[in-house]
């Protein structure tokens, strides 16, 4: 089982040092793949977009998740599970299909429902060719797709916030905002960090939705690191070595974000 996971990883690192394509023995090229990747403008653009995307959707998911969790926490259990069932739908349907049908709402070919609703506001871009609108569309899709996870985690977290502290704050005359900001949010810090962590991990490996919503990603500036890997390894060229090097760089970025989480798990396990 472990071999199934470690084998591919070792092969990836090994290929990163080779000039190799499929069915080819390969040739050792040292760090050449890494130097050419790190100086490649297209890689840097992909890294920049991926970071922007990850930041946008992480913040968005936490805000939406928090608001929804507060509302769900205030309604009766029957109503809660009804709304939760509907809110879960975008999360459980395959990403590629969700992305496809979500993008149809923004597509004039399919009636352009969103632009129709937004016309009075004077904001009706072409979501698939305007670079900033395309980026926004991908972030919106991600929030639509994955907010359910943040909602569930924060809903569970809300039920663990000590009631006495909220009541004490109310007696002391704290406003609603003050209670949320000073008491509820700090007591859920660990959960918010957990959501951010998972979201960052998912953000850096985004592929499915971009492939569906903006197939020609490199022309509208929505090429993520993984879409770039796809294009390098299986699309325009078959440079497995170069793609492996980009993979290794992405792994390093993700691992850096994982360090605090692993350390926390480590400490919990030691004390448990």
């Amino acid at each position, binding site marked *: *089982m*472990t071999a*199934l*996971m470690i084998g591919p*990883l070792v*092969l*990836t690192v090994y*290929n990163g040092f080779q000039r190799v394509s*499929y069915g080819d023995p390969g040739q050792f090229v040292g760090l050449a793949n890494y130097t050419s990747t790190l100086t490649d403008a297209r890689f840097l653009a992909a890294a920049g977009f991926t970071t922007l995307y990850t930041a946008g959707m992480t913040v968005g998911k936490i805000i939406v998740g928090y*608001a*929804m969790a507060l*509302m769900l926490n*205030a*309604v009766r259990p029957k*109503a809660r599970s009804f*709304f939760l*069932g*509907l*809110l*879960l*739908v*975008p*999360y*459980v349907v*395959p*990403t*590629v*299909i969700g992305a496809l*049908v979500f993008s149809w709402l923004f597509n*004039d*070919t*399919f009636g352009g*429902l969103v632009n*129709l609703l937004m016309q009075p506001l004077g904001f009706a871009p072409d979501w698939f060719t305007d670079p900033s609108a395309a980026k926004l569309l991908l972030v919106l899709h991600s929030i639509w797709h994955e907010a359910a996870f943040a909602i*569930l985690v924060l809903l*569970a977290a809300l039920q663990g916030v000590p009631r006495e502290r909220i009541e004490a704050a109310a007696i002391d005359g704290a406003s609603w905002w003050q209670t949320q900001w000073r008491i509820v949010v700090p007591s859920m810090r660990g959960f918010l960090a*957990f959501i951010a962590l998972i979201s960052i*991990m998912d953000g*850096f*490996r985004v*592929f*499915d939705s971009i*492939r*569906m919503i903006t*197939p020609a990603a490199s022309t509208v500036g929505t090429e993520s*690191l*993984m879409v770039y*890997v796809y294009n390098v390894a*299986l699309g325009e060229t078959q440079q*497995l070595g170069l*793609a492996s090097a980009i*993979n290794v760089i*992405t*792994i390093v970025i*993700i691992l850096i974000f*994982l360090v605090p989480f692993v350390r926390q*798990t*480590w400490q*919990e*396990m030691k004390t448990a």
Partner: protein
Amino acid sequence: MSAPSTVKIRPQPRRLTAVTSSTSVGRRRRWKTVLIYAGLSLAALASVLPFIWALLTSVKPYTDAFVSPPVWTFTPQVGAYEELWYATRFAEIGLNTIVVAVITVIISLAVGAPAAYALSRYDSSIALWLLILALVFRALPRFVVALPFYTIAQALNIYDTQMMLIIALVAVNQPFTIWLLRNFFAELPRQLEEAAQIDGCSRFAAFRHVILPLAGPGLLTAGIFTFLLAIQEYLIPVVLTQQNATTLSVFIASFGIAEDTSLYQIIAAASVLLAIPIIALAFFAQRFIVSGLTGGAIKG
């Protein structure tokens, strides 16, 4: 004891203001409830609107389906569904998707349950490292698995087979399965299998007869998640399959990227048919999905 006496000595006028303010609080609370339900309804509508739209697109006559602003009155048609079922490989690929997902679930649980149980019981540092490894692998990009597997599949001549696809899906989903099951096993008290062992059970018999039956909800949760992940997965089947072993996600996506309007209604029909059972699952198995999603965060 002191609380009621303070209420008693409260002078009359104050009590009156307390009454009036409580009705205004009541009115404000009613407004708050209305706003909350309105907010939730709006969010719920936004969650399912794309699927409703896909359904409308699939049943509209072709001349009405692709005009802006949208046409609201039309005679529903099922032509797209007939064409999907009889003229494309939808049924065959759908069956293949289910077979692959079910076998992936069985193998994942058969391998994952004993491993997770061991991890929950031995807190030696090896178990801990394995757990951290499982977490790290959960975080890795899919390509790290997909590209080497592609090379291996070509070399062993098992490219585009169900076996290759299942091996890759198990490898990708296993860390999550183990992580989830470990949390369930960790909640079951050790005394249970210790008692069984005192009564003469071997360690494995104790696991089989005492722990496994109790872990039912945990196994079901892990099974549902593995099933969903196997159906949702796009990158692994798109890289590892071509014709024979391909899944519905790949099938629908390949149509979706094509820029042929005449195919759009068939894609919409396929999306609706795939989404309906999964949405039903989200309602009927909600308890397990919720516990699976929050399990890692809360109990971890």
